[in-house]
C-alpha cells in the first residue's frame, strides 16, 4: 500500500473515535457575546480616555500665550474622530463619514448616504440625500477659464452662488455653489486636487497626468435637506489627500489598529514588527535565498510572500518583484484576492515592499528596500 493510501486511511480511522458534540452552540454564543462585550468596553474606554484627555487639554490651551488665535473653536472634540474612514487610493483621497451612513458607488462616483435614503443611482427622489465624490480629470481652474462653473447637474442647471474661501481644505482653494429649488438642494465643492497616481485605463484613452479637481456634492431632496445638510458638509470638511505612504495612515500600533480591523482594513505592520520581519527575512537590497510564492518565512505574526506583479493602480510595480508582508491572524485577510503569478525560481532581488489590504487587494503603502 502506498504511503498516500496509508495516510488517508490512518487519518480517517483516527477521526472515527469522535466524541459527541455537547453544547457547541451554547459555547459559541458565550464566546461570541463575550468578545462583542470586550470590543464595546474597549471602544467605551477609548472614548472615555479621549474625553479625559480633552478635559485636561482644553483648560491648558486656555492658559497658553494668546498671541496665536486658532482658526476655530476648540471647546469640543471633533465628532468626526469616531466616524468611519473611507479611502480611495485610486482617486487619492480619504474622508470620514458617520458610522450608520451607507457607502456605495455608481458610475465611478463614490456615494455616502444616511440610512433610510435611496441611492442617487436610482435617480433623484424625495428620499434621496447623499454626499458624492469623484475625481474630475479636468484641472480645477478649467471651469473658471471658460467663464464660469460647469454645473454638475448638466445643461440647464443654474450656477448658483459662488463663494471663494482660500485657506479652507488644507489650504486649497475651492468654489462652492448653492443650487436650490423647491425639489432639491445642493452644495457643490470643486477642490484643487494634486495630480493623482498615474491613471490605469486599459483599452481607452488616458487623461493626461496633472492637476485635477475633486468634485464633491452634498445634495438631496428638499424634505431631507435640513436634516442631513450639516452632517454632509462635515463629511466634506474631513476630505484629505491620501497618498500611498506610511504617513497616510495612522500608526497601526496605536489604538486605531482595532478600529482599522473593525473597518475591514488589514492593519499595517507597526514599525517594530516590520523591522523584525524585514530584518530577518530580507536585508535591504539583498537577494532572497529561497523565494516561493506563499512561502511562510515563519515570523510570529506575519505571512511573507514574494512574487511578481501586484497590480495596485498607479504604483508602477507591474512586472517587478514585490515583497508583501501581511499581518496574519486577522480574519479580514482570509479570502483575500492576492493571487501572485508564476513562482519565481531561485534567488530573487526584492526591490519593493508592498503592504496590501487583503480585503480589497489595494496597496496601503509601498516602499523601496
Amino acid at each position, binding site marked *: 500500500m502506498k504511503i498516500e493510501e496509508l495516510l488517508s486511511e490512518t487519518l480517517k480511522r483516527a477521526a472515527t473515535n469522535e466524541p459527541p*458534540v455537547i453544547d457547541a452552540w451554547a459555547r459559541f454564543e458565550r464566546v461570541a457575546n463575550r468578545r462583542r462585550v470586550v470590543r464595546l468596553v474597549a471602544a467605551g474606554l477609548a472614548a472615555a480616555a479621549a474625553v479625559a484627555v480633552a478635559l485636561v487639554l482644553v483648560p491648558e490651551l486656555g492658559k497658553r500665550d494668546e498671541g496665536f488665535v486658532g482658526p476655530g473653536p476648540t471647546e469640543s472634540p471633533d465628532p468626526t474622530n469616531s466616524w468611519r474612514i473611507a479611502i480611495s487610493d485610486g482617486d487619492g483621497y480619504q474622508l470620514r463619514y458617520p458610522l450608520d451612513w451607507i457607502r456605495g458607488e455608481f458610475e465611478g462616483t463614490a456615494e455616502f448616504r444616511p440610512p433610510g435614503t435611496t441611492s442617487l443611482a436610482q435617480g433623484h427622489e424625495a428620499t434621496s440625500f447623499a454626499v458624492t465624490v469623484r475625481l474630475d480629470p479636468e484641472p480645477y481652474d478649467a471651469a473658471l477659464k471658460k467663464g464660469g462653473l460647469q454645473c454638475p447637474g448638466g445643461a440647464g442647471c443654474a450656477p448658483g452662488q459662488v463663494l471663494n474661501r482660500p485657506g479652507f481644505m488644507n489650504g486649497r482653494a475651492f468654489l462652492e455653489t448653492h443650487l436650490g429649488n423647491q425639489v432639491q438642494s445642493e452644495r457643490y465643492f470643486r477642490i484643487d486636487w494634486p495630480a493623482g497616481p498615474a491613471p490605469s485605463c486599459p483599452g481607452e484613452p488616458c487623461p493626461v497626468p496633472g492637476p485635477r479637481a475633486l468634485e464633491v456634492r452634498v445634495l438631496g431632496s428638499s424634505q431631507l435637506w435640513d436634516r442631513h445638510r450639516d452632517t454632509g458638509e462635515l463629511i466634506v470638511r474631513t476630505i484629505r489627500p491620501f497618498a500611498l505612504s506610511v504617513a497616510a495612515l495612522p500608526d497601526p500600533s496605536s489604538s486605531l489598529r482595532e478600529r482599522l480591523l473593525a473597518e475591514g482594513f488589514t492593519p499595517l505592520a507597526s514599525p517594530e514588527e516590520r523591522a523584525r520581519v524585514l530584518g530577518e527575512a530580507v536585508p535591504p537590497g539583498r537577494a532572497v535565498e529561497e523565494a516561493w510564492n506563499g512561502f511562510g518565512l515563519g515570523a510570529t505574526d506575519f505571512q511573507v510572500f514574494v512574487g511578481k506583479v501586484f497590480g495596485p493602480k498607479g504604483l508602477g510595480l507591474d512586472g517587478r518583484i514585490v515583497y508583501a508582508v501581511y499581518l496574519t491572524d486577522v480574519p479580514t485577510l*482570509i479570502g483575500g484576492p492576492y493571487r501572485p503569478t508564476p513562482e519565481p525560481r531561485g534567488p530573487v532581488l526584492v526591490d519593493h515592499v508592498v503592504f496590501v489590504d487583503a480585503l480589497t487587494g489595494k496597496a496601503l503603502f509601498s516602499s523601496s528596500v
Partner: protein
Amino acid sequence: MSDRDQRFREFFDAEFRPLRRLGYALTGSWSEAEDLAQEALVRTYRAWSRIQNQEHPGAYARRVLVNRHRSILRRVMVERKHASPPEDVARVVGDDGIVLWQALRKLPQRQRAALVLRYYEDLPDDEIARILDCPVGTVKSLVHRGLGRLRSTLGSGFEAAGGELA
C-alpha cells in the same frame, strides 16, 4: 433570531463537526480540535455578513482554522513535538498507524496541513491553495515534500510492507 443569524446557525450546525475533525487531524487532540473549531467559527461569524454569499464559506472557516493552528503551534512547538500520541488514536489506528501519525506530527505545519487537507479532507489542489493562501504549485510542492519526509522518517520498509494497519 435575525435572518443573518439563522443562516449562520445552519452553517454552524453543518460545519462544526467537519471542522472539529479537521482540527483533530491537525492536532491529535479532540479538546484542542474543539477549541480550534470554535475559534474558527467565532471569527467566521464576525465576517459572516461579508462571506455568507460566497460560494464556499466553509473554505473560509477552514482557512481560519489552519491559520489559527499555525499560530498556536508556534507558541507551543517545543512541548508538542515531544508529546505522546493520545491513547484513543492508538486504539483505532493500530501500531503502524501510530507510527505514521507521529511522523505526520513532526512535519512542518504547512506540509502537515497540506497533507491533511489532501488525504483526509480529499480536497483538490486548487481548494487547498485557497485555504493555505498560496498558488497551486506551492501546494504540490508542500505535498511532495511532506510525503518525502514521511517516507524518509518511516523508511522504505514501511511502505513496502503496506503499513499493515491494524
